[in-house]
């Protein structure tokens, strides 16, 4: 009986999706994304699109074809296509499901069946996740084949994207369901879910931005400290070596004056960088506290990257990338300009930037899976409990 009813609700959910154009549009777009992946490849160490070889040196950037495909899948396929475009399409399509489900005249018959209200609501909710489940499953399966054929690696880990994306979507959809249940309005359900998502986006952006800036400020402080020590050492040297003779003495006192100026600037930079670090950390902690109760959408999606790209691969990519950029930088910026640039407080060279990014990613990776999923699912459970409570007590 339970299985029969559950099946009926899912079948109904599928038919509802099937009747909507947007569902098929999303599937077709998914197909296009997969095709464009298949066109990308590497030829003689460079990135190639279809038959054209681009000047982008993949190998020099630390990519193998396999990591290229995995990163394309993670960053573009999941990170952009599924987590943004497809999610918007999914919200637009499914936000109406709960309001229509509870509309007068439509809900009566369903409620008159031998099925408890809580189970009925939860099953309907699960059926509404079908859109994303079908989308991400077809997309992942297609990408799996492309990665196997073109990247030469059959990576079953890709399928982790399915539970991750369903979980990610459900974190947003539970809000839509609650609003839809309360207001019985599709528009309200959609808009509030989007606003909620936007709020999470702000939190996530602030979190990532602050982490990066903190790391940069730490490096700035560190470098300034190194400079201070270097200049102090050279000052001490100079005092020892300052020889006889008026010319020499003038020379060395001029040099000493210049060094003293440099020393002062380096100390100033170090102090302001230390202050920055403190202020940034304070803000970062505030954001993390605020984030604690909300779903961790970014971290959830990043779980895929965490599991598919190992720390060693990351080091390769970041290392090669920063070496490449540093090379370019050194080739184009003369040595004597560099310290000037360094003293510029908000400036960081490619190597520093790359190291900061690596460190930020390491910090995100250190957030434990139970914390990421536990708090997110906890939030969803609370929202669903409220929904069930409302649904079970309402007179229709």
């Amino acid at each position, binding site marked *: 009986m339970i299985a029969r009813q559950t099946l009926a*609700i899912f079948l109904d959910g599928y038919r509802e999706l099937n009747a909507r154009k947007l569902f098929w549009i999303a599937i077709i777009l998914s197909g296009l994304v997969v095709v464009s992946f298949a066109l990308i490849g590497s030829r003689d160490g460079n990135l190639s699109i279809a038959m054209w070889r681009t000047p982008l040196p993949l190998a020099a950037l630390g990519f193998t074809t396999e990591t290229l495909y995995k990163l394309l899948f993670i960053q573009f396929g999941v990170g952009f296509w599924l987590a943004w475009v497809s999610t918007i399409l999914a919200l637009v399509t499914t936000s109406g499901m709960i309001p229509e489900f509870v509309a007068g005249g439509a809900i009566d*018959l369903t409620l008159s069946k031998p099925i408890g209200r809580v189970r009925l609501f939860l099953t309907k909710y699960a059926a509404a996740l079908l859109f994303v489940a079908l989308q991400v499953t077809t997309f992942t399966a297609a990408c799996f084949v492309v990665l196997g054929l073109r990247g030469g690696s059959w990576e079953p880990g890709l399928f982790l994207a399915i539970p991750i994306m369903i979980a990610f979507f459900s974190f947003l959809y539970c809000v839509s369901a609650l609003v839809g249940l309360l207001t019985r309005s599709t528009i309200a359900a959609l808009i509030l879910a989007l606003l909620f998502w936007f709020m999470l986006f702000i939190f996530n952006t602030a979190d990532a931005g602050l982490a990066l800036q903190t790391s940069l400020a730490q490096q700035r402080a560190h470098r300034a400290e190194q400079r201070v020590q270097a200049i102090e050492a050279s000052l001490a040297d100079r005092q020892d070596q300052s020889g006889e003779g008026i010319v020499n003495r003038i020379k060395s006192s001029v040099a000493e004056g210049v060094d003293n100026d440099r020393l002062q600037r380096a100390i100033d930079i170090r102090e302001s960088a230390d202050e920055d670090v403190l202020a940034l950390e304070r803000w970062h902690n505030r954001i993390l506290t605020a984030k604690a109760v909300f779903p961790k959408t970014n971290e959830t999606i990043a779980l895929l990257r965490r599991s598919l790209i190992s720390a060693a691969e990351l080091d390769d990519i970041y290392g090669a990338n920063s070496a490449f950029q540093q090379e370019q930088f050194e080739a184009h910026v003369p040595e004597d300009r560099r310290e000037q640039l360094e003293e510029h407080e908000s400036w960081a060279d490619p190597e520093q930037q790359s190291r900061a990014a690596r460190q930020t990613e390491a910090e995100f990776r250190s957030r434990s899976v139970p914390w990421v999923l536990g708090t997110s699912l906890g939030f969803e459970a609370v929202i669903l409990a409220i929904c069930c409570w409302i649904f079970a*007590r309402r*007179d229709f």
Partner: protein
Amino acid sequence: MPSEDQLVIDIDAVSKTYGGGVRALRDVELRVHPGEVFGLLGPNGAGKSTLVKILMTIVRPSDCKGRMFGAPIGDKAALSRVGYLPEHLRFPDYLTGEQVVDHFGAMAGVPRAARRRRSAELLETVGMLDWRDTRVGKYSKGMKQRLGVAQSLINDPDLVLLDEPTDGVDPLGRKEIRDIIARMKDNGKTVFVNSHLLSELELICERVAIMVKGEVVQQGAIEDLTEASRRYEFRVSVGENQDENALIAQAIDLNDGSIEYTPGVVRTTVSDVHAIQPMIDALRARGVTIHAIRPTRSSLEDLFMSAVKDGGGNPGGVRNKRSRKTRKGAGR
């Protein structure tokens, strides 16, 4: 099948006050026997649908003492034996007629094979077989209603609750729905119909309850209810230069509450044929000519009208009905 002596619906007291403070039902008492066609009638807003929705667990009662199939009202398991046609029915537009019947059959727990077989049968019965592969969004109102009747029977229920089944259905369809109800009764099923189409209920129901402003004011077999209003009517005349009024007053006691007199017509609310024999004798003895004696009884419509009129000012006051009328008659 319910055992013969067990009531299908046995409500002692159900009350419902909606969120806005609307008292839709007040201490409703209702009994439906197995195998009968029961009609619940009442004016708009009387609370008929509310009562049915409480039985169907769609609305939660404020207070409820009652049972359906022996289980307390609100028990979900009992619902698998029930078919339901809601009022203002709306099906999902994207389903075809057959899918609708199949979906709600599955929700009622009917196995797949049985659903297959019965859905074609039922669609045939309501005359919708040709439309089974068309999406419900394209149906007319009456077609949706017919489909609604079909889906209410998919689980071969022992009890069907039909909330205004003929709403929007053409005369032919009404006849068909009446036939379906009759057939269900023949098969020993119980049918509960909500309606304000009295002529229709009169045709199909054995027992009715009249609900006014959330209270059941009358309940019983149509026979019995109208029995109370059974009376005899005498068409009379007297000789040329005789005073009809005086003669009749001599023959029978006009102050007796059970008698009403207007020139040419004597009405008595006595319903026993033996009880009127002395009256005939008395009238004849005074030389009153009796042209005809007719038994009359009020129709369901009269019953309904008076119940509603009285209930309107004073809910539950229907039992005062006769005495008030009598007082009026006595005053003449």
